[in-house]
């Protein structure tokens, strides 16, 4: 059963929920969708999958021309096989030129499946998109080799399925005065196609690194819980000067199980853009640096004067963090007292 009017073209944004609202990534997708639509004079659609999502679809309707609500009890929890099937049905009805998704764990679980079902190529982790006016093909730029090179690929077969890197584009600004239309789309959901069964959801602490004003991040140099304690102490004292200070780290710190993967920053973790980023004991591989390109000021503390992180930083301190951090923390504490 489908109740979408069939009309070709348009840009379809896959909206994601985060907590009670819509994910910040969704506004970035809508921002990118709008930018392309200004050139191509196309419509920007958003689609949301889930159950009892009326509040979220209403919120999104302020930013999109039309919102497709795929509200179904079997879509209450993310299940990649069912979600991909439902999204395929919507795409076949809507025939969009572009399907924009976030480069998030959820969308990365969906996008290749959807591309396979639609028989088209997919481009992931894009930072820039543009339409070739003559051909209507899509040019997608994405960092490769851990961010060392940016490559532009050309997609020729519609729908162009693309995942967009978080923090790569400006989010859609102010809500528009006119709300987009909300359309219920009832996909045929065949439960038997779901071979992967959800047994349990384990919530680790919820962090929002992408909203942090300052991030203190540790790397391989941190080594143990003692080192981590100093980082946390710096987070605490910075919290007296700034709002939203978060602890993060590069992959070695996650692999050493010192911080959960939700706090990992870099190519396979979060991409962040805080006002201040303090990298402690992080050598600065491009896999990590590619995740902090949006930071306004980067401070690096490392005992190795040759560490590549200094090349990516605005301020550098050559020295062991065990000595540098206690002094820094003490001084910051003093400043706090004066205020």
């Amino acid at each position, binding site marked *: 059963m489908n109740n979408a009017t069939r009309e070709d073209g348009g840009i379809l944004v896959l909206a994601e929920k985060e907590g009670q609202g819509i994910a910040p990534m969704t506004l970035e997708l809508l921002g990118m969708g709008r930018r392309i639509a200004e050139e191509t004079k196309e419509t920007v659609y958003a689609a949301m999958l889930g159950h009892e999502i009326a509040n979220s679809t209403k919120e999104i309707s302020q930013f999109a021309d039309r919102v497709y609500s795929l509200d179904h009890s079997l879509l209450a929890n993310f299940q990649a096989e069912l979600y991909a099937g439902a999204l395929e049905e919507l795409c076949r009805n809507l025939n969009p030129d572009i399907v924009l998704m976030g480069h998030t764990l959820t969308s990365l679980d969906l996008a290749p499946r959807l591309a396979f079902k639609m028989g088209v190529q*997919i481009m992931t*982790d894009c930072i820039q998109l543009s339409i070739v006016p003559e051909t209507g093909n899509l040019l997608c730029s994405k960092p*490769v080799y851990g961010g060392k090179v940016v490559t532009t690929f050309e997609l020729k077969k519609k729908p162009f399925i693309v995942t967009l890197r978080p923090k790569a584009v400006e989010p859609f600004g102010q809500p528009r005065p006119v709300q987009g239309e909300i359309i219920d789309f009832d996909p045929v959901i065949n439960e038997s196609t779901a071979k992967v069964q959800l047994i349990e959801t384990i919530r*680790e602490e919820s962090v929002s690194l992408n909203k942090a004003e300052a991030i203190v991040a540790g790397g391989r140099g941190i080594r143990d819980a003692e080192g981590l304690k100093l980082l946390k102490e710096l987070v605490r004292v910075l919290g007296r000067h700034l709002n939203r200070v978060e602890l993060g780290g590069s992959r070695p710190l996650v692999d050493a199980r010192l911080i959960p993967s939700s706090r990992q920053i870099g190519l396979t973790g979060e991409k962040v853009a805080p*006002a201040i980023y303090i990298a402690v004991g992080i050598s600065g591989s491009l896999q990590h640096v590619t995740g902090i390109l949006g930071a306004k000021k980067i*401070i690096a*503390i490392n005992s190795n004067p040759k560490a590549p992180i200094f090349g990516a930083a605005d301020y550098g301190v050559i020295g062991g963090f065990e000595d540098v951090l206690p002094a820094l923390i003490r001084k910051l504490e003093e400043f706090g007292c004066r205020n």
Partner: protein
Amino acid sequence: MSKLNVIVCAKQVPDPEGPADAFQVDSEAKKIIPVGIPPVINPFDENALEVALRIKEHHAATVKVISMGGQLARPVLRKALAAGADDLILLEDPHFKDLNSFSTAYVLASAIKKMEGYDLILTGRQAGDWDFGVTGLLISEILQIPGISFAQKVEIEDHHVLVEKLSLNGYEVVKAPLPVLVTVSGEAGELRYVSVRALQGVGKKPIETYTAKDLEIAPASLEGRKIVDLVSTNVRRECKFIEGVSPLEKGENLAACMKNEMLI
């Protein structure tokens, strides 16, 4: 239960930890040329191999590693055998060079179909060269088996796979019947230590090699990547070093600098 057939897909990539200047860009030829850095097994594929080897410790299992490319470095890939894999199978053909994700998945799936059965296929979540992160799931789609992404833990129980898969703010435990494909994330753990001695020990072990013809793949059916442009990334900033006679003094001066520059 009979012996489990575990297949690990491992890609040879230029060492992703190599310095930025080791990746030279030839804009004319639209190629990236690694200079002076050795090829390695893609780190996430090493994580996948480690998962396979841990399963082998608890179950009767055979671990086969397959790798595809235009030209493969046998000494690099033999590391998989030295770590404990039973067989190494190379899909090597000039036509397999620089394929797009779909064609890559198609070649790998064709080879997997030719094997004597498979219960669990493991791949890394993405490769350290092009970072597409889609080949694993495409293989599962081609083979029409369940595909599970971003595993941090994989266990076999009663002819099912139990996977801890990463999700926003935590992880999910999911279950699926074998055969199944799982893509593995770094959280699963690094590949065990491989000694030089172990590497020497497998130096003469025969390696099976298949060409496009062996796999009955028409080269014309394979597609390359359509690259329009390549540019080196410039991530450099002007670094102002904080002075001081000791790390302690530098720490204090950094605090003062942060205040002066109105960062706090």
